[in-house]
């Protein structure tokens, strides 16, 4: 007699669904990273300048920013062309319907001018005037003169801006004289350009940040330009309502906030963890502290912001104002949002992370080592300081890194306690008392929200938003990876039992 066939259901359909769920979850993260990277690359990679001649005779010059189906002529496509020249045309982008294009060219002498105001200028150089001389593009010295003059004007403009920022109320004779000389230098150099449609414009050399000819660039030059743009993005100041320039103040503000927050949260968090791990007895107080930590962990971040506003800004800040800055009232000094209150709020928010990680770190010290120290007559405090703490360092560091990563990305509480779209000055600068804790600051996360949703020209700012997002994402990912590595090291030390 043969055995009946065994039918075992492996549950393959449910397994498949479960596995697909995992794949989808992982793919989503990769997808998001990809979207941000592609968006940044797409935005920052230098494009060639294309000159379109349309059926009605008009000429357009600009950077092509994407093709899409033409909604007005189904079956055809249209190109979004960045024509710049905001001061002449009023808008940055136009749609060019490919059906209307008669001719398409990539003129070699077309230039892009990155300007301090009004965004990019696309056109053709006609004449360069400097120090009383005139040079035209046909002249062999033109290129050299142009590069030299623009570089000089750039330096002068920067010097002018620094000098003017330093002069406050009573400028000295020399400073005024220097300002005048610089202004004279700037006005002595002019560049005349012609747009694709034939309009001529004369601009002073001091208005130009950079000039380049995209159609003459090879792959190497394009890569260099790409890297140069990313560098500028990280280290220069924003312009044009945050839609151009760089994010340096936002990076600085985030770093400053995070460092100030660390000053508050590390002692508070580590000592709380020490109490919970080493000194706590099983009483109501300990239970209360534990519940407090877990409550703080569950509170939504915006509630911290509301508390920070009500308590730190209005209550404590108002009291500080009345006690020390009464002369300024009713203009608030500390009674309004600022980097001090924001960092205190963030310290409260990230406290649970530090406590949990520090507790884990403190557990890394093996009981044998502790007992050994106590057996030799060390007090609890001495054991803690000399024996346990070295074991706990990786765990504590993990906690700090995680707190920093959280603070770099958390925006909601900051919106209520002192972050701004554009800060006129940094919280740390050269004017005494050097540390200005009452100043408002800029923040990477808020920058993304602000430029992406509250800027006057979102389309022009798209590359900036993608790049800022990439910077924040990379920062947070790197920090979290570091924390992961430290935590693994700590866990291995725990298992190994030796330092």
């Amino acid at each position: 007699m043969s055995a009946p066939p065994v039918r075992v259901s492996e549950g393959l359909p449910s397994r498949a669904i479960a596995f697909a769920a995992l794949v989808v979850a992982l793919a989503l993260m990769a997808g998001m990273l990809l979207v941000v990277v592609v968006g940044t690359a797409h935005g920052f990679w230098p494009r060639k300048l294309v000159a379109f001649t349309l059926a009605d005779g008009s000429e357009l010059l600009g950077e092509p920013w994407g093709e899409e189906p033409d909604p007005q002529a189904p079956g055809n496509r249209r190109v979004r062309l960045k024509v710049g020249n905001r001061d002449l045309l009023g808008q940055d982008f136009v749609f060019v319907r490919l059906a209307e294009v008669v001719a398409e060219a990539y003129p070699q002498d077309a230039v892009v001018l990155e300007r301090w105001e009004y965004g990019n200028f696309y056109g053709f150089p006609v004449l360069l005037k400097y120090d009383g001389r005139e040079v035209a593009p046909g002249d062999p010295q033109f290129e050299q003169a142009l590069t030299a003059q623009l570089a000089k004007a750039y330096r002068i403009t920067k010097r002018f801006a620094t000098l003017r920022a330093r002069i406050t109320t009573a400028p000295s004779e020399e400073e005024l004289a220097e300002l005048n000389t610089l202004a004279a230098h700037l006005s002595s150099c002019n560049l005349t350009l012609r747009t694709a449609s034939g309009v001529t414009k004369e601009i002073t050399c001091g208005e130009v940040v950079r000039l380049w000819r995209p159609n003459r660039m090879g792959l190497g030059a394009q890569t260099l330009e790409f890297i140069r743009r990313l560098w500028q993005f990280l280290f220069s100041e924003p312009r044009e309502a945050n839609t151009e320039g760089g994010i340096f103040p936002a990076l600085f503000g985030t770093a400053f906030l995070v460092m100030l927050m660390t000053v508050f949260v590390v002692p508070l968090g580590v000592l709380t963890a020490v109490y919970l791990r080493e000194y706590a007895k099983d009483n109501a107080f300990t239970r209360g502290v534990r519940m407090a930590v877990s409550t703080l962990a569950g509170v939504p971040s915006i509630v911290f912001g509301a508390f920070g506003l009500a308590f730190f800004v209005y209550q404590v800040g108002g009291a500080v104002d009345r006690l020390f800055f009464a002369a300024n009232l009713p203009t608030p000094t500390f009674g309004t949002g600022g980097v001090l209150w924001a960092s205190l709020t963030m310290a409260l928010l990230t406290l649970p992370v530090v406590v949990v990680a520090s507790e884990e770190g403190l557990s890394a010290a093996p009981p044998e080592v502790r007992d050994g120290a106590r057996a030799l007559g060390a007090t609890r405090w001495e054991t803690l300081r000399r024996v346990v703490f070295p074991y706990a360092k990786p765990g504590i560091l993990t906690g700090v890194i995680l707190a920093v990563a959280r603070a770099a990305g958390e925006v909601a509480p900051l919106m209520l306690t002192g972050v701004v779209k554009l800060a006129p000055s940094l919280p740390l600068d050269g004017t005494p008392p050097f540390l200005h804790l009452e100043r408002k600051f800029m923040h990477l996360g808020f920058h993304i929200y602000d430029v992406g949703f509250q800027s006057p020209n979102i389309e022009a700012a798209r590359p900036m938003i993608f790049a800022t997002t990439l910077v924040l994402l990379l920062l947070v990912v790197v920090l979290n990876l570091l924390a992961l590595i430290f935590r693994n090291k700590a866990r291995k030390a725990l298992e190994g039992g030796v330092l």
Partner: protein
Amino acid sequence: MAEAREKARRADRLAAAAIAAVASLVLVAVFLLFLYLVREVWPLLRSPRIVHGGQFEQGKVLLARPGELSGSLWVLREEGTLEISPGGQLVGLEGVQSPVRQALTDRWGRWLGVVHGAGFSAFRLRSQVRFQGQDRVLELRARTVVFGDPGDFELLALGGEEDPVAVGRWGQGLCVLKGRSGSWEAQSFSQPPPRVAVVEGRGGRAWIAAADTLVLWDLERGTRLASAPLSSSPTSITLLLGDLTCVLGAEDGSVTLWEAYPSGEGWVLEQKGKFTGGSPVQALAPSPRDKSFAILRQGVLELANLTSRKVAAQVPLPQRADRLLTFSPRLDGLLVGEPSGRLHRFAVQLGHPEVTLGTLFGRVRYEGYREASWVWQSTGGSNAFESKYSLVPLILGSIKGAFYAMLFSGPLGLLAAIYTSQFLSQRTRGVVKPVVELLAGVPSVVVGFVAALVLAPWVAKHIFLILLALVFIPLLLVTWGVLVERLPRPLQLAYERRWEALATGGLVALAIFGSATLGPVLEPWLFPGGFLSFLHDRWGVSYDQRNALVAGFALGFAVLPLIFSVAEEALSNVPPSLLNAALSLGASRAKAVATVVVPAAAPGLLAALLLGFGRAVGETMIVLMASGNTPILSFSPFSGMRTLSACIAVELPEAAYGESLYRVLMLAALLLFLFALAINLLGQVVARRLSARFGGLR
């Protein structure tokens, strides 16, 4: 040596005390958090108060009005002069000859109309607070705008902007006097004789109440716009700030609220509220700053509010005080007068009369609305805007967002956790877990940005494809799984061991590819004109680009790592003996997991879902960016929403400290805090209960 040890012991005690103190700071911080939120919300509960501030004799006065300077007022004497008090400064009224028979101001004290021996004069009043040395004094100027002799009439109301308009009773009919170029143009109409009237600030319309009818009168064209019958004889009338709501006091003590709505070609008057009272209404005064008003009855002065439809405060006063009811311009006082000339002053602490439990959570009929509804619209163009502080759209918005987030990430997270903890090799699990933890660290700003600026437009264009893919993927996977199960066991096991990953991944890709190719073909066939226009035309469902679906997806994405981690932890902590017992009895791995491991880990799984839900409700940035942030009440996944957290983030920086909006937003923050606490507690309770049921197997 002993010294050193003694020092060390002292240091130890000091350290212990200091560390305990620092730990207590955490406890203090949480208490402070709760306390401060409550402290900022508490004033909402305080009811407005009127306190008698004293009475004083001014001699016989015809009119009295509080001035802009605190504690000042001006009175009109029978001789026809204005006297400012304190100070006693007299302001003469040009052309006024005794006897002064009648004097009236408009509601806000801008116009002064005097019927006197020589005729009827209208003055434009301008008051200023000036510095006289160290003191501040009230300065009053009265400029004659119109003077004429329109004959015998009873002045009822005054109004207008550049030119004054007066409404009165002439004989047994209505008369309207328009001031043009310094003189009066009189018009009389045969209407039921008016008892009381009030003119709108712009002088275009007037509300006139006769013995049994309320009429809305067009002053420019001289016609009746709308009328409504009255059940009791009117004794007093006024218009609230903004000139939309008319308040009518009657003989039977009732105070009714009226509003005019456009209907067809004309207008219709609707009574939209009623306050009852014991004694007949003697006077009404509108608040100059908000939608409150004062009701003067015999023996009692009441303060009522339009939005809450409640009498917020009451104070008794002498029966003789029956006239001259006015608010001070700064809304900090009320003036009531007696016929003898004695004036009573009342200090008013208004508080927040428009915020009550009824207006926060119930349906309110606001100005301009025909029906009571839940609306959040905190600010408008001017002070005359009726702020609408209903928390209901916000609460429902938070729940809606969290619901769609859980719809996406709940099953996904749990399933992924089940697969990771039960079916993945140890090595792969060691890679997957940290990767998902990294995902947890992604800031919500980044997720919100990608969702709003990249995903939302893409979803709007390809919504049909996405829905198709959501159907295809599970369908394909289940079909494939069922087919493979038909294979003989050795092949099944081989598949499990080597081909499963590849096959599943390939199938998902195939399903997506299939939707992408089939979509453009199916859509015009099933839904001619496009899926979205089909929804719009057939079912009236409109599609917003930034909607609950996209925001829910993004929220779910942010919450997914949390659910995954907690669920995975719970599943991994199930004792392997349980799983092995099931396997040894012949169950397949999947069956063992489904029937033994998952129920054993149920406390943790439920805790994961609860934590995820709690986190999704509290999330701010994603909703702010991806949901359109519109405070509408709708459960459609294709429309946006505004959550409590997003509302706080957007509106709190703009709210002035201490005003109603600030306190309501603090209330919203308190609600979020309590909700987070409740979810945490619930999670713990549920975990413990289920643990008792299933965890006893350990």
